[in-house]
């Protein structure tokens, strides 16, 4: 099973097994990672904001327009910001590193 590495801004690091097909947000929620996902992945908020490690950013499919629209409502955006509900786990993303924004 692919693994995703979650970092917090306090320097915590957790390596989590991630079933293929779940979103990174779901993986976080199922494993007690402190991430808010107010709209439960329906692209109606920006609270599941994560900062993707630069070495992984280009391996992700591009942001859709709806994700860009919701990112307009987020704070502290970076060049590698994504909404974690829009990143789906695949074999290719084994080892993906993300930092929970605002953590």
């Amino acid at each position: 099973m692919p693994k995703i590495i979650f970092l917090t801004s306090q320097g915590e690091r957790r390596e989590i097994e991630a079933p293929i097909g779940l979103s990174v947000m779901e993986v976080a929620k199922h494993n007690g990672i402190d991430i808010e996902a107010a709209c439960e992945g329906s692209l109606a908020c920006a609270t599941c904001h994560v900062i993707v490690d630069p070495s992984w950013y280009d391996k992700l499919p591009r942001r859709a327009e709806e994700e860009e629209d919701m990112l307009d409502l987020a704070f502290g955006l970076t060049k590698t910001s994504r909404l974690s509900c829009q990143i789906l786990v695949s074999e290719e993303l084994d080892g993906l590193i993300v930092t929970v924004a605002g953590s």
Partner: protein
Amino acid sequence: MEETVPQVAVIGAGPVGLFSVFELGMLRMRATVIDALPEIGGQCAALYPEKPIYDIPGLPEVAGAELIERLKAQAAPFHPIYRLGQKVERLTKIENGWRLKTSAGPEIEAKAVIIAAGAGAFGPHRPPLEGILGYEGVSVHYMVTRKESFRGKRIVIAGGGDSAVDWALALTEITDHIYFVHRRDKFRAAPASLAKLQELSNVGKIEFVVPYQLSALEGDGRQLTAIIVSDLDGKTRRLEADSLLPFFGLATDLGAIASWGLELQHGHLPVDPATCKTSLDGIFAIGDVVTYPGKIKLILCGFAEAAMAAHAIFPLVHKGEALHFEYSTTKGVPST
């Protein structure tokens, strides 16, 4: 039913809170419904009024706002009292029930409380800028009640959606200068509004500050003197301004619920799935705010929880009375 003093307080006027008025009403109980927003409808009305919902039983497709209208009509025969634009601050145990203190209006006494708070009370999405709380209400505003108060001022409008665009257009004549800060060069607004915005920018009445994000505030703690913005490369600009209007949508805050002495698990209220009772007697919870083994966050599940909570509340309101149950097809509903 209009003459009865409401016996149950429902916290949250989203779809599930509204349906609980119906379920309570069918068991001869009247409700006061409290909500932080000035309009009923919760997330359906606030976040997706025009989006179609496909999973409401019996309704193959219904827009968020339309669902709320239908629920409001379904609740109407039971004459709920709506207390809108106020948040419940404190719950105090009294004999045979609870007393609720809200942020506006008289205290409410109820034999039972149903918490249908969803993801929490809606409020403006606050930029995490140091000191912003002190500036709020004086020089940081999330809505405009009086355009006149911005006459001759230099203001910063931040955000990229309709609210930001509409207010920039509305305030351009009255203000001295508008800085319009947005993280990218695409704005989400009606084409006619965007065209007008561009015209105003061309003649220097509105200055686009793009692609920038809010970074810091300068001032004496209450009155702003400047707003610092930064781009994705860390480059900053200092915008001298008197007021900041951030338009970043709504955010939810479970806030006060955490202070009422209820057991909470990761921001949710654990309840007995058979009755929807919380850890405190006389307080029930339904909808997205609850957790129990197998809980799914669907409106339809909240509807079912509303029925169960109403049945569990019956003995608290109609003490000693047996619950003679009749289906709505037999009993009917009162005429409005």
